[in-house]
């Protein structure tokens, strides 16, 4: 029997899927023809899954240079009558924001779905952010699944509804949906393949001021029609219980936690429950029905009190006297859990807690000081570590000349290299959002009298670094801009970008070099270095910092993970290093303290290199005052 996969046309079969695979599966079943994204945890596997079946199923899939472009690519397909998907993480939506806001004015032709994955507790993000506010601002209806299986269903629904109402739809996922797993029953895959056709209609598609005025009422009209329809949408569901004093409005994933909490508390059947699958617009009739049936209501939702505020508005607007709770009892920070719901419901119903949570917390507090800190760190052999080391040395050399206490300032960016803000490297002073290193560097250069060194990764450079680089030339900012080119979007799982020379589906394409772009932008100092040639790299960076004008250094070395993989494939040997114990005094620990490389560790007072971790980069050789670090394994 052939193994089932996420692309199998096998309706009724069950498959164990990651949430993002289930989301991709929903798009596949809906007959998506164009899908575009920029990677970002926890959303990346959606496009990876689609890329994997693109050829087999005739779907055009691309990794775009950033989220705005991804949205525009997908939206163009929708305008041409095809079903299209753009997916991104919450902060990616900020990048796409401008396009999204006017897209809802234009409306959709082929079903247009924007999948946004929020990240409560910011497991892999620079912020927690509730994307539903953006949707509200743009009159985008939002579907929010309560489980992995429902995520698949809702993707199918979203495409259908988008087409029915000629309006783009958002599906909001969260980390525990996208990176949740579940058995999922497969549905049928739509075989429909449409030919793109662009029906010209400038009055509706060209957004001048008059176009905006004409289209805004049409958009509001479409939105109101959707509002009428959501009361009967199957993702919304009201269970009224006779005599219940408490009603719970549970949006998206919080519905799963609520069901478990009610069971845990033994309150099943005693509480009325409204499951919300469309936080925007809310099913107003169902909400009112619940509000009128109970004196006390709890609203549960991930992140901000979005539904809560609207429920309160509905209660106020309809003069319904009811106590509405939400973020007063459930924390505003972090992700929800069965426990948090259990505690909130217990308080509102005066129920006994099923277990002693305080004892668990006490235990946790006792354990905390015993546990070793295990922060993420640059891998052994990571070229970023070498680049940072060179940059710090170069910065120090030049800063000295600005005064005794002068220090270079290092605006950093988002990628694996962000980890070097931590000790012992500490080479990032401010990290805001993707591309901001160069923008912040521009600003600092105009107000500080000290070297300013901005740095970002290659994927980040193509994503949003170029405008700020151009700005430095235009506005004569004396900044050094370093591009840490590991030929990978490493942090999010090695997705291709314009510098890798291949596309999402593995096709060969033009390999774009950041140094060519820098030169084309008018930067006069542009050099490429190999960070593992530490001396040369440091010297070039020093010259770049001294250069009177914007300067660019591309520090190029493939990501070690990729390099090791390639070597393994090619059967190439990795020559590692060891520490000669006769020369090492075991106490200086300069290698450990300067680099924080996970491969250098202590064993019984000795400083040693872990031969299972070392990848032979040789950076530690430069740090040893005793010349005790030698190539090869000891005889």
């Amino acid at each position: 029997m052939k193994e089932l996969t996420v692309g199998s046309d096998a309706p009724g079969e069950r498959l164990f899927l990651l949430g993002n695979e289930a989301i991709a599966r929903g798009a596949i079943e809906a007959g998506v023809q164009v899908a575009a994204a920029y990677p970002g945890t926890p959303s990346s596997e959606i496009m990876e899954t689609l890329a994997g079946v693109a050829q087999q199923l005739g779907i055009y899939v691309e990794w775009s240079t950033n989220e705005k472009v991804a949205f525009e690519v997908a939206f163009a397909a929708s305008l041409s009558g095809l079903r299209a998907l753009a997916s991104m993480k919450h902060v990616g939506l900020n990048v796409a924001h401008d396009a999204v806001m006017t897209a809802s004015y234009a409306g959709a032709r082929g079903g247009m779905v924007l999948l946004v994955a929020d990240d409560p507790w910011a497991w892999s993000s620079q912020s927690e952010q509730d994307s539903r506010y953006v949707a509200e601002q743009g009159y985008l209806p939002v579907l929010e699944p309560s489980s992995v299986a429902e995520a698949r269903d809702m993707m199918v629904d979203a495409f259908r509804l988008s087409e029915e109402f000629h309006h783009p739809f958002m599906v909001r996922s969260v980390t525990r949906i996208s990176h949740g797993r579940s058995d999922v029953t497969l549905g049928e895959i739509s075989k429909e393949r449409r030919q793109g056709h662009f029906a010209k209609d400038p009055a509706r598609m060209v957004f001048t001021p008059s176009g905006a005025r004409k289209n805004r009422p049409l958009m509001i009209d479409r939105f109101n029609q959707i509002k009428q329809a959501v009361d009967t949408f199957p993702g919304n569901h009201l269970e009224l219980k006779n005599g219940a004093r408490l009603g719970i409005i549970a949006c998206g994933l919080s519905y799963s936690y609520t069901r478990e909490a009610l069971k845990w508390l033994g309150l099943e059947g005693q509480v009325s429950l409204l499951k919300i699958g469309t936080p925007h617009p809310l099913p107003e009739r169902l909400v009112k029905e619940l509000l009128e049936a109970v004196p006390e209501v709890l609203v549960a939702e991930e992140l901000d009190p979005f539904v809560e505020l609207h429920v309160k508005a509905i209660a106020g607007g309809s003069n319904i006297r009811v106590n509405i709770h939400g973020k007063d009892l459930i924390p505003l920070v972090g992700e929800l859990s069965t426990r948090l719901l259990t505690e909130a419901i217990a308080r509102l119903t005066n129920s006994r807690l099923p277990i002693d949570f305080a004892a668990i917390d006490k235990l946790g507090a006792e354990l905390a000081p015993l546990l070793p800190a295990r922060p993420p760190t640059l891998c052994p052999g990571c070229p970023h570590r070498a680049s940072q080391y060179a940059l710090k040395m170069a910065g120090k050399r030049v800063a000295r000349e600005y005064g005794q206490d002068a220090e270079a300032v290092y605006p950093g960016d988002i990628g694996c290299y962000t980890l070097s803000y931590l000790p012992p490297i500490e080479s990032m002073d401010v990290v805001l959002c993707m591309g901001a290193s160069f923008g912040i560097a521009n600003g600092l250069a105009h107000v500080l009298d000290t070297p300013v060194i901005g740095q970002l990764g290659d994927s980040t450079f193509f994503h949003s670094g170029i405008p700020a680089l151009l700005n430095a030339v235009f506005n004569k900012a004396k900044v050094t801009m370093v591009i840490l080119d590991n030929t990978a979007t490493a942090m999010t799982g090695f997705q291709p970008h314009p510098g890798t020379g291949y596309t999402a589906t593995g096709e060969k394409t033009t390999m774009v070099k950041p140094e060519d772009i820098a030169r084309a932008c008018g930067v006069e100092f542009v050099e490429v270095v190999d960070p593992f040639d530490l001396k040369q790299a440091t010297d070039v960076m020093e010259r770049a910092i001294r250069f009177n004008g914007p300067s660019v250094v591309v520090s190029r070395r493939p990501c070690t993970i990729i390099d090791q993989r390639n070597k393994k494939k090619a059967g190439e040997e990795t020559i590692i290093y060891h520490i000669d114990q006769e020369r090492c005094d075991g106490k200086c620990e300069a290698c450990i303290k300067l680099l924080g490389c996970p491969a250098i560790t202590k064993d019984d007072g000795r400083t040693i290199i872990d031969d299972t971790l070392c990848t032979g980069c040789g950076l530690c050789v430069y740090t040893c005052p005793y010349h005790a670090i030698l190539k090869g394994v000891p005889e």
Partner: protein
Amino acid sequence: MRPLCLHLPVSRHTKGGARIVAEYNVLIAGVGGQGVILISELLGNAAVRDGINVRGSEVLGMAVRGGPVVSIIRLGSDVYGPLIPAGKGDILIALEPSEALRNSTHLSPSSKVILNTETTVPFTVPLGESTYPAMDEIIARLNKVSSEIISLNAREIAVEAGSSLSANIVMLGAAFGAGQLPIKLDTIKEAIQAHFPAKLATINIKAFDLGYQQSRVHHQ
């Protein structure tokens, strides 16, 4: 032993012959690169084959870069959410001792811990920023929050099976050896067979069997 089935007699079985459970919560903990996620994928695939309802989730965060990895698999008819409610963990498969401790607050008093004794000491320890607890301390603390600890050196056993990379599968075998997982032995082995190319499958089945036997011995 805590009853596995809260509402159904223990003898009930699914169509596939697996035991029906109301809720059985598996927590798998380790550090990036140890193969935590593979264990949960295999458990999930096997559960589906056995007709058992399965939910779960994982947090990788920035785990590829050496951080902690936790994956959750929940089996049974009463399971909705992707997270194990605090205090409801039935089994902790810990690929690293200090990570076992870090996640021990999830356990219920009747839970079991399958503990790989091989440590992965983070770089913060040689840097002098934190300390690594002694193994005795770890075991003593785990004993307080679980009913049984089955400890083994998974890497050594994996080497015996043919590859140190199979340490995670040794741990999976040991978890089955503890005797409570509602998935059938044949089914989990099928899932292992299906996941690996033939040569690696043989090694991994051996790793599984050795882990299984090790924890059986422990039981006697």
